[in-house]
């Protein structure tokens, strides 16, 4: 083995060693923050609520859940989870039922579109919220469903107004993203029909 061959191997080895050392340093410096961000994201996305938190209404998970619900029903103060991670009955601060919130994920163009829907007791939509993080729609087209100009169209709509149309009577589809828009509108409409029975007050369990 000549001297130059040794040096070739050695120089590669040294470079890799330095690189690995530097990267492990950077990794340890940023790891805490990356994990923090990812945890926050999963907690907000999944909003996993264990069964007993519904009765106690306290704890951090509970607060996160409430902040999720407040995005679509702003006056939410407490809730009862009816179907895990899917349907909640929501009360205001006087323990009066103000509506239900449900989370659906209809199939869009590139994948499921996660939507939160806040439905008032009069079966009028209070607000919808589409999660941007897990969206797999075409960038620049389908992803426009997360924009407030699209989502605000759903505010104060009754179920029979939920259809795509050219004028303001219905929901205006996003240009170039008809499939995504239709998925959102149809998903919300079908699920309102499915869940609106939970709004009828006598069939409901009273809030604790």
């Amino acid at each position: 083995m000549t001297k130059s061959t040794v040096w070739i191997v050695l120089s590669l080895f040294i470079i890799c060693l330095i690189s690995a050392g530097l990267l492990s340093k950077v990794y340890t410096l940023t790891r805490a923050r990356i994990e923090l961000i990812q945890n926050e994201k999963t907690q907000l996305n999944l909003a996993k609520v264990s069964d007993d938190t519904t009765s106690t209404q306290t704890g951090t998970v509970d607060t996160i859940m409430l902040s999720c619900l407040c995005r679509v029903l702003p006056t939410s103060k407490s809730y009862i989870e009816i179907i895990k991670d899917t349907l909640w009955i929501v009360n205001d601060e006087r323990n009066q039922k103000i509506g239900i919130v449900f989370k659906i994920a209809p199939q869009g163009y590139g994948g499921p579109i996660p939507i939160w829907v806040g439905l008032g007791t009069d079966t009028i939509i209070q607000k919808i919220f589409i999660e941007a993080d897990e969206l797999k729609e075409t960038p620049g087209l389908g992803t426009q469903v997360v924009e407030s100009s699209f989502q605000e169209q759903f505010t104060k709509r009754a179920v029979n107004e939920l259809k795509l149309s050219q004028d303001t009577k219905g929901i205006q589809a996003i240009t170039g993203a008809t499939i995504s828009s239709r998925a959102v509108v149809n998903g919300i409409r079908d699920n309102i029909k499915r869940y609106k029975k939970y709004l009828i007050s006598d069939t409901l369990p009273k809030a604790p």
Partner: protein
Amino acid sequence: MITKQKTNRWKYLTQGIILENPILILMIGLCPTLATSTNANNALGMGIAASFVLICSNIVISAIRKFVPDSVRIPIFIIVISTFVTTVDYIMQAYTPSLHKVLGVFIPLIVVNCIILGRAEAFAYKHNIIDSFLDGLGKALGFTLIIVLMGIIREYFSKGAIFGMIIGPKALISNPMLFMIFPPGGFLLIGIFKAIINKFILNKEVVE
């Protein structure tokens, strides 16, 4: 001699911006340019990330050039570049998670960005640290300038907004030129830029 060196250095810095602009004259690094310039914010993020890697790798490669065996220089360049790219990747994940999500695979792909590898091979491997730094800075500025300019134009025509602020006329917002965010819009824009620069800058240079 000293003045000559000074003018040379000034040239290394300024050449990259227009006369040796990586995108428009050298025609390298087109892939990330087309893919991430759909809006001004992404373009700026990509420009900064690539600039950081380009400048740092130019400096380091120039510093180690005398120890690097000629036969394994390319693997060593790639290790150096990928170290910086991974650093950028971690930092963006920790501090700008939303931008990191949008740019996605284009951050790791900076490793094989031909601007960076090209400058390492063509310049930094043959020049001293200060010259390499200036060359990296110049090319980085040229790259960032063009990619941000493209981002601004594409965002304006496709959404009527710049950096997310809506400023376009109403007619444009209700009827945006959607093709500008698609690849054809990007190619068209690069073609227009290239035509302008050929007409006004290259010709002038030849006459001089």
